């Protein structure tokens, strides 16, 4: 029986899902609610990655679907982040159980990083392009902070922290954000 079958729908009626209810839960202001939702999605995505659950993006959608259903059923949720974390743990556990049932690791991959179909040149070109598009001061921070040579890297970090007036933690956070932005650009680039 498919989920779309009318027989199934009659047997297991699904509560109507109101996407607005989720946003309302997150914040009264729609814009702030959207950005909180976006942050929540990012954290969920990373959590599924770190827990090595296959297909993290669809797990996030699965989780949000469950949350919307609970809201539609009138479930009271006091702390959305912690509630989502609990749901995420349920999903991780389900993935583990499913993987155990199939007698293979839940990620399905253990031998090593999978090779993408894009060539090294494609990636390098995209990285170059995205770096060129960055404002020069940001690009400078990124390239110096992540310099491949360890001694130069450590020296760069000391100099950057001094010249920008940042603590090492603040510099690390700033560099990490720049790196994320650059990587987002690369992933969205045509290759």
């Amino acid at each position: 029986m498919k989920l779309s079958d009318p027989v199934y729908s009659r047997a297991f009626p699904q509560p109507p899902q109101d996407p607005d209810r989720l946003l309302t839960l997150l914040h009264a202001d729609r814009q702030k609610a959207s950005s909180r939702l976006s942050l929540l999605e990012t954290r969920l995505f990373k959590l599924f990655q770190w827990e090595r659950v296959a297909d993290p993006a669809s797990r996030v959608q699965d989780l949000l679907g469950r949350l919307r259903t609970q809201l539609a059923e009138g479930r009271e949720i006091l702390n959305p982040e912690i509630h989502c974390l609990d749901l995420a743990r349920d999903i991780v556990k389900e993935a583990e159980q499913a993987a155990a049932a199939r007698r293979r690791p839940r990620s399905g991959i253990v031998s090593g990083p999978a090779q993408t179909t894009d060539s090294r040149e494609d990636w390098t070109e995209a990285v170059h392009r995205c770096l060129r598009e960055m404002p020069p001061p940001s690009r400078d921070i990124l390239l110096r902070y992540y310099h491949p040579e360890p001694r130069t890297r450590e020296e760069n970090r000391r100099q950057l922290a001094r010249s920008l007036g940042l603590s090492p933690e603040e510099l690390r956070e700033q560099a990490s954000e720049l790196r994320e932005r650059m990587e987002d650009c690369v992933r969205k680039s045509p290759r």
Partner: protein
Amino acid sequence: MSERVRVEPVEEARILRYLLGQLPEQERREIQERCFLDASYFQFVQAVETELLDAYVRGELPANELDNARQFIAGANLDSRLQIARSLAALIPGIAPDESGGTPGRTGGRRWLVLLAAPVAGIIWTLFHGTQPGEAVGTTEDPARHMRVEIREGESAAIHKPDGPAVIAIDLLLPKSHATPPFTIEVRNNLRELVWSQRSDSRGQPPRVTALLKPDQLRPGGYLIEVSGIGATGMPEPAWAYYLVVE
């Protein structure tokens, strides 16, 4: 975004172990919760992930962690991040990224060796500020195969475990303090189990206490050494911390 909270140095090693799938359930849950409640902490975990990928690509990870790193990258579907890390490493002429991401022992590997061997506070902070592990003050090995190493408070040193009968003398330099002898020295492994302890008076200039250990008392791994003295009230002063990595 929450106010930036300084992430204690001990957290970096713990986060690394979380990413590498080496933390017990309770600690995994703690990290997960903090990620969901503290935006700054979440950003920090992401930063550690990035630097772990970079270290993997550049062959800076110790050999015994390569499989764990490979499994993490594969399991977490970080292929695109890996490609970007390789491309970024290739931008500087003369530094070719490691094709397999798997050859350990390049310059910089020592940092990761220390980080992964000793999940204790202070090491990462020290490294971030540029002090090389093992260069805390100095290490000497005399002809009788007695090894001596000096460590300043809050810093780390790495030693190779000597073969055969020998004594490892660890001089722990004491910071300026009102604390008075007797000083208690405790050596704990990375599970915080007490490996060795001793009471000692300080000596020398700068003042120091010395832990004398036999090689069979230390296994390869990270150790936290704590020294406490008697404070003005007659009660033990909070312990000073030193870090030792046995390779």
